[in-house]
Structure formats: C-alpha cells, structure tokens
C-alpha cells in the first residue's frame, strides 16, 4: 500500500493499523457524548453502564453469541432504565442506579465463573481493553457504531445543549426532554460498548470525561470546548495506542494516563495564567451604573473592544464586572491615582 521506507514500523502490522483506527473512532465519539454528561453532572454514568455491559459480555461469552452484541443490548437497556428512573425524580433513584450497576458487574462475574468454558480472566480483556486482538470485523462494527454516535450527537447538539443547560426551560419551550435524555443515554451506552475493546469497561468513563475537563480549562465557549475535547480525545487515544506499542504497556490504561497528564498540564497552565491575569488586571470601582450604547459615557474604541470613559477612567466589560484600562499604556493599570473615585454618574461628561 505504501512504499516501505515512508511508513513507520508501527503501521506495517495489520493489527496495529486496526488498533489505531479503532482508537481514532473511540477518541472521536467519547468526548462528544461526554460533554453533555459533564454538563448534566452525570460524569460517572458511563462507568455504571460499563458495569452493566460486563453482564452482557459474560452472557455473550457463555452463550457463544458475539459479546459486543450482547453487551450492546445490556448497556442500551440500562441506559433506558437509568433515564426512566431519573425522570421519575424519586430520591431513591440514586440507590436504584447503584443496585443496577453493581448488580450488573456481579452478574457478569458469576455467569462467567459458573459456566464450564469460562473463567473470570476471560473478562479481563473487556474490563481493561485488549486492542491488539481487535479483528477486522470488530473494527468495522466499531466504525459503524462510532459514525452513528458522532453524527447523531452532532445533529442533536443544539437540543442536547439546551436540555442539559436548563431542563425546565426546554420543557416549557416544547422540546421533547425525556426523549432527548433517553437518546443521550443510549448514545452513551453505544460509546461504552465501542470503547470496551480499546480502553476497557472500567476506564471508558475517563475518555468521555477527562478530555472535556481539560477543554473546560482552556476553552471560552461551549462550541470551542467541544472541538478542543474531541481533538484531545483523538490525540489521547491514538497517542496512547502508539505509546503502548513502543513501551509495551496496556493500551487502555496508557490512553487514560495520557489524558490525565494533559489535564494536569492544562490545569497548571490555567492556574498560572489566571494568576498573571489577576495581577495585571484591575477591576473598576463598583458602580450601579451599567455602561451601554446610550449610557451617557463617551465610547472609546480600543483594540478589539470598547471602553467607556467614566470620570477619566476607561471601563471595559470583563466577565461580570468592569476593568480599568489604561489607553496610553495599552494595558490594564497597576494602580489608580485615587483609590476611592467619587461617584460621578450625574456629573457632566469629561472628554
């Protein structure tokens, strides 16, 4: 396919090509679904679905069905069940989920352990991933499922965002909230199953959540956060599989450690960045007046934003307050001449 010299060694093996492809699909789909789980504060729900999927894997192994298929059935049923329990809004719903999750993992171990052919070690490749044993058929199934997850999530993104942001408003504006929530749960279940051979059922939640946690530290909007998270997800999963090939480490756990390393790097960067920004930036005095197009203060175009000339100070909107900007120095002031500037809203404007 490629001239030998142009291809890195890792790509000369068929099983590694398949592994990298599978990793790419998982890295793409997991953070896309995960962002809505983070938004709904359901970060650990994927972990629970993984527990239930394990029972499906065990049943598949014992009955000689494809474990991917039986795991998919179990995970989707769990997803619908979770949303129905949540929609009823009972306080005992939390306990019901715990029963479902731990029931799933216990059932999986017992079914495998008591069958003649299986031992609990058969489950290891599903619990922690075994990407190098992925077959071509597996990869085709994963690719198809990942495509479904990615395109459905992309199409429903504005509605999933609206429902996760404010469920009550979404309901009042006529959106089918319960249907959208069940759809998200099913997308999560499918992602769990797609990822179980790559990162494993015990670690899949990490790939859905950690890239999003990282993106939240560096992005400024929901839109950019999704993009950053998907890029991080792909970098971690493909990078993890590559690393595992050279370092001879388990792929799933390597992917998760890379994701966490990126998160720690972003957290460090963002805290240093915030500290510097806080030192360089000075909030204006608190005033009840809100600047606006007709607020009576002179508007000064400044870089790519607008300053309001307020009693000789330049006030620029920043987060929930106003910053003091020094036009001459072209940066925020380090100090003010008068620490308690008088309230001058009724004074004539100074040029």
């Amino acid at each position: 396919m490629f001239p030998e010299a142009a291809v890195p060694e890792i790509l000369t093996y068929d099983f590694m090509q398949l592994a990298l492809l599978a990793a790419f699909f998982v890295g793409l789909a997991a953070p896309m679904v995960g962002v809505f789980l983070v938004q709904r504060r359901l970060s650990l729900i994927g972990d629970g679905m993984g527990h239930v999927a394990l029972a499906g894997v065990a049943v598949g192994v014992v009955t000689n069905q494809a474990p991917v298929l039986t795991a998919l059935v179990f995970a989707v049923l769990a997803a619908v069940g979770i949303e129905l329990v949540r929609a009823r809004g009972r306080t005992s719903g939390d306990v019901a989920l715990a029963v479902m999750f731990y029931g799933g993992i216990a059932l999986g171990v017992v079914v495998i352990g008591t069958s003649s052919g299986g031992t609990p070690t058969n489950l290891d490749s599903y619990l922690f991933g075994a990407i190098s044993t992925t077959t071509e058929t597996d990869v085709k199934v994963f690719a198809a499922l990942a495509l479904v997850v990615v395109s459905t999530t992309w199409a429903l993104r504005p509605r999933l965002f609206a429902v996760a942001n404010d469920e009550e408003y979404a309901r009042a504006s006529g959106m089918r909230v319960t249907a959208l929530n069940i759809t998200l749960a099913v997308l999560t279940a499918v992602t769990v199953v797609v990822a179980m051979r790559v990162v494993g059922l015990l670690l899949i939640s990490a790939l859905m959540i950690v890239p999003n946690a990282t993106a939240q530290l560096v992005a400024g909007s929901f839109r950019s956060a999704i993009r950053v998270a998907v890029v991080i997800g792909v970098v971690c999963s493909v990078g993890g599989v590559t690393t595992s090939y050279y370092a001879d480490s388990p792929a799933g756990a390597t992917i998760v450690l890379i994701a966490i390393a990126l998160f720690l790097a972003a957290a460090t960067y963002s805290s240093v960045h915030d500290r510097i920004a806080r030192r360089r930036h000075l909030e204006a005095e608190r005033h009840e007046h809100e600047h606006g197009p007709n607020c009576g203060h002179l508007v000064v175009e400044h870089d790519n934003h607008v300053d309001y000339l307020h009693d000789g100070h330049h006030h620029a909107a920043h987060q929930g307050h106003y910053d003091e900007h020094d036009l001459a120095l072209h940066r925020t002031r380090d100090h003010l001449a008068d620490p308690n500037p008088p309230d001058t809203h009724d004074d004539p404007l100074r040029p």
Partner: protein
Amino acid sequence: MSAIVSLRSASFGYADREVVSEVSLDIHAGEVVAVLGANGSGKSTLVKGLLGLNNHLGGEVALFGTPLAHFREHARLGYVPQRHTLSTSVRATAAEIVAIGRLPHQGWLGRTNRRDREIIDESLALVGLADRATVDVSTLSGGQQRRVLIARALASQPDVLIMDEPTAGVDLASQEVLSQVLARLVERGATMLIVTHELRALRGVLTRIVEMGGGRITLDVTPAEHDRSHPTAHRADHDAHDHDAHDHDGHHHDGHHHDDEVSPPSPGAGPLDHVPGGRGA
C-alpha cells in the same frame, strides 16, 4: 381580540395533588400583571401550569384561544425561570444561552443563521448585555444571569413574557437595572406575567396586580386600587414580609379583567418586532 391567557375555574397541581383551584383569569395583550403571594400560595404552580410544567387538573385553560391540551406554539410564551435552573457546569457564553431561545424557530438541525444572530444580539442589547455576549455566564453576577434568561426568552420572539421571581435574590444595583429592563420592555408594548414576592422593583410598569393565597385568587386590582387597599405599600421598604401579613379577606374578586385600565402603548407588539426582517420573515 381574544385573550392571551384565559382561565375558567382552572386547577393545576402535581399528580393528584391540587395546588391551584378554581382560578378564573383573563390576560390581554399589553397588560403587565404581577402575581403576588406568599410561598405556597400557588402563584408559581399557576404559571408553571400555563407552561405545561405540571398537570392541568380541571376547568378550562386556553392560550391564544387554543385549549391548553392542544397548544403547540410554545415559543409564543417567553418563559424566564428562576436563575437556579441554569446549569453552569460547563462553559457557555451568554450568546450561546440566548441562542437556545431561537431553537423553536429553527429546523431540526437547529443551526443558527444570520437572522437568528441578529435577534440574539438584539435580545442581549435589550437587557443591556450587548458587551457581554461572549462572556462565560458562570462569571456573570446573579442579576446579569437573570437578564441573560430574559434575553433567551426574548429571542424566541414571544407574545407574552412569563417571569418567575425575576428580582428575587438579586442585589440592589442589579434590581435597579432589572427594573430599567422591564420598563424598556413595557415601553415596547410587551405583555408580561410576573410572579413576584415584592412590588418595589416593579412600581410604575404594572397595569394589574393579582394576589394569590391558598391556591386561589384573593385579589385582582389595578396598582392604584392596590395602593388604596394596602396603605403600607407606599413605603419604600415595603417587602414580602409585611405584604404577606395583610389580611386579604373581603377582597375576593371575580378574577375578570377591568376594562378601564391603562391602555398599552401598542397592544400586541412583541418586544423584538422592529428587528430587521422581523416576525414571520
């Protein structure tokens, strides 16, 4: 003109528990109605019933002449919920939140076109947040978040705004700004139904005051009549507590609209009707 909201002996509640009973009320275009009442008086249950957020248990309810059970034009009701319904678990800019208000007008993919963006910008400008469009809402103050929610409702180009406690838990400075925003909307002829604990921030914008107690309407008057029957309401420090202490007995009105009330500047006009390529374009 048929009423925007029309209730006849309506009752609302959750499951089989009736919270609001036997309420009759008509709200017409251009009216700005405050619904007052203590906690548990049923005022929130009433407006949530209109929005389909709880169960309609009896009586007749019609929105824009359509029975509630068949009402599908949800975007005509601009709902401004309490602030705590807004999740700030992930980054979202003010403009992204306001864009949610456009969803009922968009195709099934819900993609934002140029006209949507114009309406989003216009809505943010109306609540005085034009310069915070790209700011993460979780960094905004409580009052500013409230105004983002008002802008989201405005972006759906509603015929009536339904607000749940817009001024509760907001600092004094933000209350001032909120009052200005409400006054600006009234100037444009907006119809509003405002659930509130206290009238102070709403003085001057209301055309009608409805009080609830025990799940029923106990008073339905003009602000002037309300002042006469509640002398303490003139006090600047009038607040929820002394308001709730009033004895409403003997004030049970029939809940019907009084035709001699202040006529609105331009009845039926939505707050965003002047947007380029406006409604229905």
